[in-house]
């Protein structure tokens, strides 16, 4: 395909024609695309609607199926290679799955040889696929891609490193799958095909199993089951199809660009979603777009119509992209709905307030559970009329100066480190950590809800502390804290190191078990006690505090304006760095408001297993209860 296609943002009519080109229709219903790539090379006919062609969108499969592309040469044996890294999951698990896959492979090879489709279920696309594979082979080295079609090599990890790690991790995966199979057997959950659709009842044991990783080829079903996808789907039967029909209508609408500005933004992001993944790469047959990209477009556009409050937010392309690798299109859509509403409420909204709230929650957690790290990242504000930086308590450079301290200002003026951590939440670690690690986090997110995202974040922060300590940062930073960061430049320098570390460290977390074994499974690590209730309470608290500050700052602003002074605060409330003493000289706004802001208690985490909130009032109550008990 020509370069023009990538760059065309909705302008040329010809492109518009097939923008929303959906699959061939049957009985007037759009057929969901075969979006689930067959990364493990199993026939899915048992679990999938028969309209789904066998093609399974797997470029990897095609690569593997064509002897011409395998490194080893032309014999069928070379398909299975001798390098573990090249094996599909199924190859590794062996057993019953082995033969159908080989059969399929052989069948495809026959097809390739004879040059015509043998599959009666195939629609236009799959036969095209087969045909075009011959005409325009993708000359890529299969060994360079992982089992999901992602390029193994990244900026921070070489293919060799990946392969060495994978030899071991793949065996771990095989062992875990064995355990899962036993567990399911014991629970009386038999299943046909390659993946169960029902899983055992929730238990500590199951939670542990999930934390150790759901078998890759079960992930789609397991996520769907744990996130209660059926509940939402059954309540909304047919809705996705309706949305697709609306997309068709919009396609022919006149000034759609004006009416649906999200469409263009989605369009720009489609090809910038996993460009390193085989399934998302341009195919040279058809109109140059992979099936996956088409599914991605439909899911994103349908979502933007479904939830106009969110519309489209960059990062949702990665969420949907990953979902599409494991679930069919309709389910991927509903999972996106679930993620954006249940796990990450408000995070993708137009004002992104949910991100700020979650960053506030994370900062509270860091302050509570990782005080060492907090000492690096808590914000420092410059005092004015001075080229030195002093460590000042938050309040001392605002109007609250003389009125005492406030504990929670950092929830409003978030520390700069949140510039890095915000994307961890927006994309649920997609693109933040290497894919296998991300998937393990997703396993837990769907089983344990959003509190796990905070645990994972705290875990990563804790682990990166070692990197920080190794580097210069430790010495300089500790110095700073003893010496109260004497100069701005040193602060900038340590900030830079911090950002650098926080950005690169997660990208090197190739082995998920580093995170899980060193952090998540360790009982003595206190933040592992965080539960969903705590996170929900914390979110509420932060939301409240942010509102208070916002109102307060706005009130201050307007009184500033009436004094003929412009505010030094920007509208998001982030201290823009040159706030001056203006507040001190202004007429105070209502005392109650100041009082309200100042009197805010710090957030009280419940401690240990007792589940008691140790903020002052509760402490008092406990004391009274104890007294009473003592008397009895």
């Amino acid at each position: 395909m020509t370069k023009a296609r990538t760059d065309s943002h909705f302008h040329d009519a010809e492109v518009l024609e097939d923008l929303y080109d959906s699959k061939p229709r049957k009985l007037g219903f759009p057929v969901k695309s075969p979006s689930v790539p067959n990364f493990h090379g199993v026939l899915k006919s048992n679990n999938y609607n028969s309209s789904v062609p066998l093609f399974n969108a797997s470029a990897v499969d095609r690569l593997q199926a064509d002897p011409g592309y395998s490194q080893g040469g032309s014999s069928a044996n070379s398909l299975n290679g001798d390098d573990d890294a090249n094996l599909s999951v199924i190859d590794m698990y062996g057993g019953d799955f082995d033969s159908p896959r080989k059969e399929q492979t052989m069948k495809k090879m026959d097809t390739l040889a004879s040059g015509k489709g043998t599959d009666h279920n195939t629609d236009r696309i799959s036969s095209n696929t087969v045909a075009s594979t011959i005409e325009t082979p993708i000359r890529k080295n299969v060994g360079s891609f992982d089992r999901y079609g992602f390029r193994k090599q990244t900026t921070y990890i070489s293919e060799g490193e990946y392969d060495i790690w994978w030899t071991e991790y793949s065996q771990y995966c095989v062992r875990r799958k064995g355990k899962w199979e036993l567990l399911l057997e014991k629970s009386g959950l038999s299943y046909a095909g390659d993946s169960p659709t029902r899983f055992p009842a929730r238990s500590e044991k199951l939670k542990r199993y999930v934390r150790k990783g759901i078998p890759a080829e079960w992930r789609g079903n397991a996520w769907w089951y744990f996130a209660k996808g059926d509940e939402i789907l059954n309540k909304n039967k047919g809705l996705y199809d309706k949305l697709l029909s609306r997309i068709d209508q919009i396609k022919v609408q006149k000034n759609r660009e004006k009416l649906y500005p999200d469409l263009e933004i989605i369009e720009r992001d489609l090809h910038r979603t996993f460009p390193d993944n085989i399934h998302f790469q341009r195919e040279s047959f058809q109109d140059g777009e992979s099936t996956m990209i088409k599914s991605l477009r439909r899911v994103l556009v349908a979502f933007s119509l479904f939830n106009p409050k969110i519309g489209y937010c960059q990062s949702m392309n990665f969420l949907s992209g990953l979902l599409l690798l494991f679930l069919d299109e309709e389910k991927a859509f509903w999972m996106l709905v679930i993620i954006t509403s249940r796990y990450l409420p408000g995070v993708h909204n137009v004002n992104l307030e949910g991100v700020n709230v979650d960053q506030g929650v994370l900062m509270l957690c860091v302050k509570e559970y990782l005080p060492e790290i907090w000492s690096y990242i808590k914000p420092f504000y410059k005092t004015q009329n001075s080229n030195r930086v002093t460590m000042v308590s938050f309040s001392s450079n605002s109007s609250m100066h003389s009125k005492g301290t406030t504990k929670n200002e950092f929830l409003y003026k978030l520390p700069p480190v949140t510039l890095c951590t915000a994307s961890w939440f927006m994309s649920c670690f997609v693109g933040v950590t290497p894919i296998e690690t991300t998937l393990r986090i997703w396993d837990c997110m769907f089983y344990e809800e959003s509190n796990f995202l905070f645990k994972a974040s705290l875990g990563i922060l804790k682990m990166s502390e070692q990197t920080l300590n190794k580097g210069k940062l430790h010495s300089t930073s500790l110095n700073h804290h003893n010496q109260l960061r004497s100069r701005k430049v040193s602060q900038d320098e340590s900030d830079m190191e911090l950002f650098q570390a926080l950005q690169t460290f997660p990208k090197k977390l190739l082995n998920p078990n580093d995170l899980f074994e060193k952090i998540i499974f360790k009982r003595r690590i206190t933040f592992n006690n965080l539960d969903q209730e705590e996170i929900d309470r914390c979110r509420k608290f932060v939301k409240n505090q942010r509102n208070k500050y916002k109102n307060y700052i706005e009130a201050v602003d307007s009184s500033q304006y009436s004094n003929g002074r412009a505010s030094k605060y920007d509208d998001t409330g982030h201290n823009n760095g040159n706030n001056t003493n203006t507040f001190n000289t202004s007429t105070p706004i209502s005392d109650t408001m100041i009082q309200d802001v100042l009197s805010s208690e710090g957030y009280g985490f419940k401690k240990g297993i007792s589940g008691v909130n140790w903020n002052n009032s509760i402490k008092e109550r406990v004391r009274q209860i104890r007294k009473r008990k003592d008397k009895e």
Partner: protein
Amino acid sequence: MLQFKLVLLGDSSVGKSSIVNRFVKDSFEDLRESTIGAAFLSQTIKLNDNGKEVIVKFEIWDTAGQERYKSLAPMYYRNANAALVVYDITELDSLNKAKTWVEELKNKVGDDNIVIYLVGNKLDVCEKDSSKRLVSLEGAKEYAKEQGLLFIETSAKTGANIKETFQEIGEKLYDIKKTEVNTDLDGNTGEIEISKPSTNDTTSCCS
């Protein structure tokens, strides 16, 4: 070593990440992942001050271009020494977005010392096919002059004018810093944001 904070702003997909990547790694990818939130990178350059070599380290924040990320932007341009406001010369609307960024920077940062560079990217596309150009060189130049901005057209793909742009920013900031230090010596305690040489001087005190 001098250290400057630099932020890239501009509409989604105009090529901010590609520009930074060309500058930092001297590479270009036809398909680059869209940026979520922001990415942090750093790179050093050398300047020549009358034969004396000066090393400048850039702390670069590459932000996400989508409109809604704008609410996070103040965190990024806070204390920035320079801003690259990027638009795509093949997208008319991206210049309008760039203009709103310029306005916001002028209103919110309010620091005369922030160097704003207006950058028209994807020059290579128009060199190949001049009909692709939707933002005229003259128009953009005129606007930049009006607003007192530095201006250039670049291509992250070919690398045209990328290094030069950062080099010029480095020089400009160095000059500003020098005059600042001078006024400082005159007893004026103007803020020296940037880059006194880093020392672990524990005697410097804090008020």
